[in-house]
């Protein structure tokens, strides 16, 4: 799920950036530092949409670095249990398959793949129905439901299922290409 929230961060700026475009430098550094990171609390920081305020800088003794408290608005993505996501399959093996929804990695174990889909090994390992009409392989897009999340301080990992109504393959790369 996406959220638009305000976060705060103390930015350290090298003295060489002190000048007319110091603020731009600060913001670009913020983007570089923060976007794409993940915190267990807020989820993945997808994009910074604006800077609310930059507090008074504090010069560090000895180094000359200046610390600015920066408040910024950003879009975060945080997966929840029970949430339904669309994801791209990245790897298929006999234990199940891995998929990515943006920055989030999701594992779907084979017992949460419908019983009528069987694992086919080979160059392009895949799960296929007996009539071959539905196939899950690398680059397939699937809709899945998250049934568990593992949230660490800097990492979120999910497990999902496609064994439910309206879940499963939503486009088959083999048929389109």
């Amino acid at each position, binding site marked *: 799920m996406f959220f638009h929230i305000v976060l705060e961060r103390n930015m350290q700026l090298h003295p060489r950036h002190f000048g007319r475009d110091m603020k731009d430098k600060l913001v670009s550094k913020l983007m570089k530092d923060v976007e794409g990171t993940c915190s267990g609390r807020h989820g993945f920081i997808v994009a910074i949409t604006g800077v609310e305020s930059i507090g008074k800088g504090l010069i560090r003794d000895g180094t000359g670095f200046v610390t600015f408290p920066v408040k910024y608005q950003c879009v975060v993505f945080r997966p929840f249990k029970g949430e339904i996501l669309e994801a791209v399959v990245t*790897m298929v093996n006999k234990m199940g398959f891995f998929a990515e929804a943006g920055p989030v990695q999701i594992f779907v174990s084979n*017992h949460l793949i419908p*019983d009528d889909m069987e694992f086919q090994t080979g160059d392009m390992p895949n799960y296929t129905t007996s009539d071959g009409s539905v196939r899950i392989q690398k680059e397939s897009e699937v809709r899945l439901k998250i*049934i568990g999340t593992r949230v660490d301080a800097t990492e979120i*990992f999910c497990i999902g299922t496609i064994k439910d109504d309206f879940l499963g393959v939503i486009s088959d790369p083999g048929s389109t290409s």
Partner: protein
Amino acid sequence: MASIEPFNRLVKLAARAFYDDMTTKGENQTKVGRSDNRGTAVVILDALTRRQWVREEDLAKDLKIHTKQLRRTLRFFEEEKLITRDHRKENSKGAKIYNSAVAAAVDGQRNGREGDDKLKMHTQSYCCLDYSQIYDVVRYRLHRMKKKLKDEMDSKNTVQEYICPSCNKRYTALDALRLISPYDEDFHCESCNGVLVAESDKLAAQEMGDGDDNASRRRHDKLKDMLSKMEEQLKPLTDQLGRVKDLPIPEFGNLQAWEVRANAANRAANGDPNGDSKSLHGFNGTPMPYLGETKVEVAFSGADDKGDVKSVNTSTPMKVLPPWMIREGMNLTKEQRGEAGADPKIDGAAPSASDLLDDKKSAIVNDEEKIFQDEYVKAYYAALLNRQHEQVETVKKEEDFLNTAITNEAYDTSTQRQVGMKFKREDYGSGEDEWEEAPPAGGGSTSEQFKVDLNVEAAASEEEDDEDENDWEDG
């Protein structure tokens, strides 16, 4: 008024459903025979339903189990959130406060406490059922059981587990990212690099084929069966939960508060025995001594029992008997033989004998009786003397018995008594068949004796006496 009874029932049901085969194993109790203490958990919970706050030592003594074992079980129940416990250092004074509180709350239930130790500080543990928490815990437990089965049934929302066959380390699907190896498509153990195997579903592990259609259907059936069985077997419990749902949950508060309240209630009850005590302790309107609720059981066993009826009668023989009841009165006096010491043989003859001997006896002994019976005492006197000579033995036997008979009859007027006598004799005559207790043969023989006497000597007897005589012949 909040009743604790439904909640106690809940506790008992839950105890039997979930803790019936629970065993607590002591560190040193390794022998199977000794450590098999299944059922104690249920016993302890049952005992707690009859108490409020209880000192664990006392409870152990009541249940005749070792304090250690009790503590172990109680600790378990504390973890299960069924009971709350309290530990405090106390001297004899603290114990006294508690004891009086117990006395107030559970009258007559406390048992002998040891001699008060002189201001020695002891750590005492107390425990008490936590009804509100029990209600929640039981509901939560049922919910989890059901959910687990249902999830397993749908193979939904279950996190696949993996196990390393070589070192038995376990992983879940959430660890998948760390377990994949770049070289093959298996999951590998982090510590020994062995190939992990998926752990088949725990509940239906047996007879599991390798994921083929049939096996999964079988598994599904089995789980479904299990679920329905569970629902069926736990129905009493769920019913009780439903019944308890809207009732106010009994609360005892913590130990100190409970003691204070119990003692206050006690004082209030003592000061005002008319039952205002309930309103005095303002505790959400729930009366404190839940356990004090008295059950009165009335057993109507054997109400139709002949013996019982008789005993009822025997308890009221001294009341004024209406004439038509005199027969029964006589019967009773007969049954009071223990105190009357009369020979059962004379029952049939009792009426006439009583007349005669009464007269004699009352003339000699009893002034009051004499007043009533003076008229015919005189009439009979001569005859009596004669007869007495002849029947000294019989008379002696009868004397005591007649004494009581007289006391019964003395309440009636003499005429009434005469009528009564008549009825009585008639009753006896007809009743001989029905009433086995009345010995007809003996009665017949004695009456015959009397009859002879009367025929000979009763020339001057009054009308009443003639009637009597006739009756005797009839009898």
